[in-house]
């Protein structure tokens, strides 16, 4: 993960044209370092895990169908070209084939729908949460209110203008650093209430698998439960005006003791 932005990337960029081939070869696992990342960030919540698994399941089903159908098509392009076959066949329908290739997709879709439905029901269940945090989107920063602890602060981009305007070298977490992180305890079911004050935003942390629109006048809710301590970064996902690209989200997941200490520290200030 540790690296500093350098400007001469063209050579590697050209090499990247080959990257899709690597995908076909099946190197799909989220790579340890983020360069050329091909897939989801490493999931750290039950929701993100189930999303990852579903995503991979559907992806591989699609790849298999794709290879099969276009394998047949490319075989046909090769074997049935005019220089090899002067005369075309003349069939124009086959009820049997048409019924088969209508029924098989239906079965595959049912196979996809069942785990998706189960996952969705699990994800939408925000009951029995241990704590609640209210998140409010502003143009262009986030406000976090710990409703159980009376903690309330804003969190805005910390990357200096000089880096954005290319007058200073870009740091590792360029555009993904904020002044005050959202601090959450691990292994707790946390309910997040999400709303906005001006226009629509969306609160999104990929590793948490948490994304919900923040809509003025409405309160949306999601839940998360982080498995391992760490720092997880995300961004506003709904176009919210000029600085939409400059309102990141940083979540510090800490142990329960550390979290309690942090709450103590915040409330005593």
């Amino acid at each position, binding site marked *: 993960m540790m*690296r500093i*932005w350098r400007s001469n*990337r063209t050579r590697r*960029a*050209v090499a*990247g044209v080959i*990257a899709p081939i690597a*995908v076909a070869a099946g190197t799909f696992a989220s790579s340890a370092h983020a360069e050329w*990342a*091909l897939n*989801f960030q490493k999931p750290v919540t039950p*929701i*993100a895990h189930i*999303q990852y698994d579903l995503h991979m399941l*559907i992806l591989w089903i699609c790849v298999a169908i*794709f290879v099969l*159908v*276009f394998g*047949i*098509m490319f075989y*046909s*392009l090769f074997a*049935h*070209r*005019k220089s090899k*076959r002067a*005369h*075309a066949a003349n*069939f*124009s*329908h*086959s009820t049997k*084939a*048409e019924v088969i290739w*209508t029924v098989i997709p239906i079965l595959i*879709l049912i196979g996809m*729908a069942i785990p*998706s*439905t189960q996952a*969705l029901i699990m994800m*939408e269940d925000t009951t029995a949460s241990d704590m609640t945090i209210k998140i409010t989107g502003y143009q262009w920063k986030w406000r976090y209110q710990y409703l159980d602890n009376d903690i309330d602060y804003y969190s805005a981009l910390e990357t200096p203008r000089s880096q*954005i*305007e*290319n007058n200073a070298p*870009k740091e590792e977490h360029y*555009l993904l650093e904020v002044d005050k992180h959202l601090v959450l305890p691990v292994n707790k079911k946390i309910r997040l209430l999400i709303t906005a004050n*001006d226009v*629509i935003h969306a609160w999104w942390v*990929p590793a948490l*698998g948490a*994304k919900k629109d923040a809509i*003025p006048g*409405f309160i*949306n809710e999601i839940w998360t439960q982080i498995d391992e301590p760490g720092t997880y970064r995300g*961004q506003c*996902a709904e*176009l919210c005006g*000029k600085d*939409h*690209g400059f309102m990141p989200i940083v979540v510090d997941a800490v142990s329960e003791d550390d979290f309690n200490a942090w709450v103590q520290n915040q409330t005593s200030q």
Partner: protein
Amino acid sequence: MTATTADQHHDHHPTGITRWLFTTNHKDIGTLYLWFSFTMFIIGGLMAMIIRSELFEPGLQFVDPLFFNQMTTVHALVMIFGAAMPAFVGLANWQIPLMIGAPDMALPRLNNWSFWLLPPAATLLIASLFVPGGAPAGGWTIYPPLSIQGGMGVDFGILALHMMGISSIMGSINIIATIMNMRAPGMILMKLPMFVWTWLITAFLLVTCIPVLAGAITMLLTDRHFGTHFFDSSGGGDPVMFQHIFWFFGHPEVYILILPAFGVVSQIIPTFSRKPLFGYTSMVFATATIAFLSFIVWAHHMFTVGMPLTGELFFMYSTMLIAIPTSVKIFNWVSTMWRGSLTFETPMLYAIGMVFLFTIGGFSGLMLAIVPADFQYHDTYFVVAHFHYVIFGGTILGALGAVYFWLPKWTGHMYNETLGKWHFWLTVIGMNVTFFPQHFLGLAGMPRRIPDYALQFAEFNMVSSLGAFLLGLSQIIFLINVLKTIKGGEKASDRVWEGSTGLEWTVPSPAPYHTFATPPVVK
């Protein structure tokens, strides 16, 4: 037939600009639509070049974030309403009368109006870039409250959309009237060429959903200026309501863009396979089913707005259902090629490319339908990659294929096959290098519509930008090829292609033959 031009006097016809201004000839209007569409394609393409230049490297290099947002917004509006839709209306104008044996469109003057609304509309839209506050910058979806915040450019955009909507409605009514009323004797509906069928269904979608767009943007306008609170939650309104209404229009709109391309491909593949289209009836029903389903899937564009669980499940299932008629179409195309006698002229290359690339977009669409996973994909570059595979890989490749397919019929000259093949391969390579890496960017966590990005997205963005420049440049080949074909070139026969079938190639409709003593052979 030798020309014995005796006298030159008494030319009753307008010439020069007035000829084009007042023309009611479907071929003229078709030509106007196609050139208009190509112009918009270039303008929208230049905006895409600005976007990709800014995203070439992290940091802000060329434009400020607000202008970047204007570019993404106007690029989308120009491409959808200026380039893609008019391209197919132009093809419809040229081809539908020829394909159904009609002398012209049913309402030639209405046809003239529906075209001539477009240039002023496009001018308004592009002029909005130069007014105080700039062009609409809230995305082509113009979600309030953000679009309420914009300057007068948003009003320009709304007015332009209204005009384009009126144009579309007039065009679709004309197309419906033409297809229903002016078919040659013996051409029953179930004998219509697939391109005509897909356009009939598309026109139906247009007349059904354009009023919804018109209503939505009118409400936006009154919210902005006349004190209404349709979408303002502080005044008792509901911003999510706009999204529901917009996507109720927006999803059929997506199929308005793709269905005629399906039609084009269904004409091209049988021609170069020298074999009839496989499963004509199921093609027609699949198209109609897709059109019907497009009205009950709209909320899949807004899974993250916080719908009730039952709503999310309904829209997930209905969206997944679309895969069935779509896969029927793809299987039918592949079966049409199966055991055919295939050649690979440029139109066929485009048709095969379209089937292949559209299917990639279709599969990512299926992935997006899976709500739990969509929570990750939504509003990321994965979505950008998805709809560019569908719209560029499907709609634009379909339109380009159609131009190569019918250009000899329009101009009487063959296009240059070598240039055509170069154009195809560079376009397809450019398109894939541009949009395939965007899948990875989206999965890795890059949101869409951002002018600057974190460092881990740098590599694929650079690849994507390089691809975009290639894609943009290769369209010059297309322009050169078309201009060369108009000016001259090898004479095209009536049939043009060895495997061509259909009225437009054998043109005479059956009725008048026997009424004359001499056979009507005019060469």
